[in-house]
């Protein structure tokens, strides 16, 4: 395993993040589905095919025996858990990706009106509170604001299509800036 020491970024968080990235790459390349790493009281567990970041953290806190016995039943997920199970999408997105979900039932529109351009596009960097789409419910058009910021990786609903409560609408990369920073030095190591 190559240690990514080339980064001079003193930001601890970024360091940790890079370390986690290494683990993710390791899992990706090796033909394993699970990895448990423990050092100085910090436990990190990775599992492929269970794309729930917070769930992973919780499992890691429980200890290895419980992690191994976890059989991933079809369980309930609340908004806060930040599920990354994206309907109709294969799960090849990095673990850090998150989604903006619909909090209501209605019809999804990407612009304020037909003759206007979409409110946001893929690769746009959005801020929390920014208008991102319109949902029509009971003949009323409601402008929907982002509840989190980041770079839009993918828009998961087609214009004019229905959305249900809790449905993923936007795939968001919340750490796009850090990623940009980390990409440059990493190129040098390869």
């Amino acid at each position: 395993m190559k240690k990514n020491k080339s980064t001079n970024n003193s930001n601890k968080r970024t360091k940790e993040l890079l370390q986690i990235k290494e683990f993710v790459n390791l899992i990706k390349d090796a033909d394993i589905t699970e990895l448990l790493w423990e050092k100085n009281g910090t436990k990190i567990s990775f599992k492929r095919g269970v794309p729930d970041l917070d769930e992973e953290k919780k499992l890691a806190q429980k200890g290895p025996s419980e992690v191994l016995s976890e059989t991933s039943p079809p369980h309930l997920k609340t908004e806060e858990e930040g599920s990354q199970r994206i309907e109709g999408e294969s799960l090849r997105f990095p673990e850090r990706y998150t989604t903006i979900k619909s909090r209501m039932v209605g019809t999804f529109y990407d612009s304020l009106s037909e003759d206007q351009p979409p409110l946001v596009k893929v690769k746009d960097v959005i801020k929390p509170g920014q208008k991102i789409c319109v949902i029509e419910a009971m003949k009323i058009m409601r402008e929907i604001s982002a509840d989190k910021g980041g770079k839009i990786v993918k828009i998961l609903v087609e214009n004019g299509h229905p959305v249900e409560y809790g449905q993923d609408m936007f795939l968001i990369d919340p750490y796009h800036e850090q990623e940009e920073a980390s990409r440059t030095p990493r190129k040098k190591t390869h």
Partner: protein
Amino acid sequence: MFKKILIANRGEIALRIIRACREMGIKTVAVHSQADNDSLHVKFADESVCIGPGPSDESYLNIPNIISAAEITGADAIHPGYGFLAENTYFAEVCESCNITFIGPSKEVILKMGDKCKARNTMEKAGVPIIPGSRGTISKIDDAVKLARKFKYPVVVKASAGGGGKGMRIVQNEEGLKNAVTICQSEAKAAFGKEEVYLEKYIPEPRHVEFQILGDRKGNIIYLPERDCSIQRRHQKLIEESPSPAVNSKLRRKMGHAAVKAAKAVNYTTVGTIEFLLDDNGDFYFMEMNTRIQVEHPVSELVSGIDLVKMQIRLAAGEKLNLDQDKIKICGNVIECRINAEDPDRDFLPSSGTISNYIVPGGPGVRVDTSIYPGYSIPPFYDSMIAKLIVIGDNRQEAIARMERALGEFVIEGIRTTIPFHAKVMADEYFRRGEVNTNFIQERIFKQG
């Protein structure tokens, strides 16, 4: 006829409606909370829409999301089932304004029957017997004494602002009445800030006997054989049967006609239920009307051979009632036990969890309406009823024997259920003789220990 019906409910009733729709060639839309992602009504419907998180007030009671779900799926009618929005006038109104048929009565009818005082007045005007009582509040003791003589003792003094048995006094004679009025007034003032009390005739140990009625838009209304729902715990029905052991054909006709009169008084155009209290003398009194399909509707379906849910859908679509009162028959004796996820040994404490082992009873004359399955986790947000076990026999003895047999076959493991409690009731000699009233559980089952 409707092309697509959205079912604004969950559990066994949602499944029951989906089944009726499938047989009628009507497409279905299930709405569900996030806690019900894996429920059968979602699996069996043609389409499903998640309308909110687990708690009912954010999902099954979320009118905007339910209406939106109907709009995005193109449903032309909404069936509310029972509970949740079934008797919500605002919901019925919103459906109407969105051009979606609400499968149930109009908002005016729900309003008229939902208010107990209004309903009582309507019934009195229509000539339906109501429990004799003072029309308004009583201020003078002399008035109370006069009324009580007219009603005959025992009578009950109730606080106008009270409810659920609070501020209530049952009195047997004039002496008691004078005291009760004074005490009730001061108690009512202390508890509710108003000292207004009223007087009603007290019906000791009544039976709860109700009539299923069906009406169409042409003004045709019929009744089905009664359901005896006397076996209750804290005003929650546990066991229902039809016909009632206390009702003969003459009384059935008399009560049935009163039920039809009650329904006609509000121009009732769908399925509904008129509830009566029946005393030992065969006198009966209007209690309330339920303007929806009821939990215990399968009892009437088995006893009459009529599919009430299909009828309800047809009537909502404007079809004529094609049933003749004279042709309504009693096909046998029917008993229903409501199986709840409750621990009867721990004061019926709700018992949630995952169903590990599950065996459904079957064989002749057995029907089970449920939405549980092995591996199903009971969410903590909703009603504890998980199944209805209904049997029909050639006579009451056979129905009881069949129910005992079916309860014995029924295996639900992983949670506690009321199955053993029902077995105890079936074995009770008073129950077997048909001697039950609304105090039965308290007097017979609990006191036995």
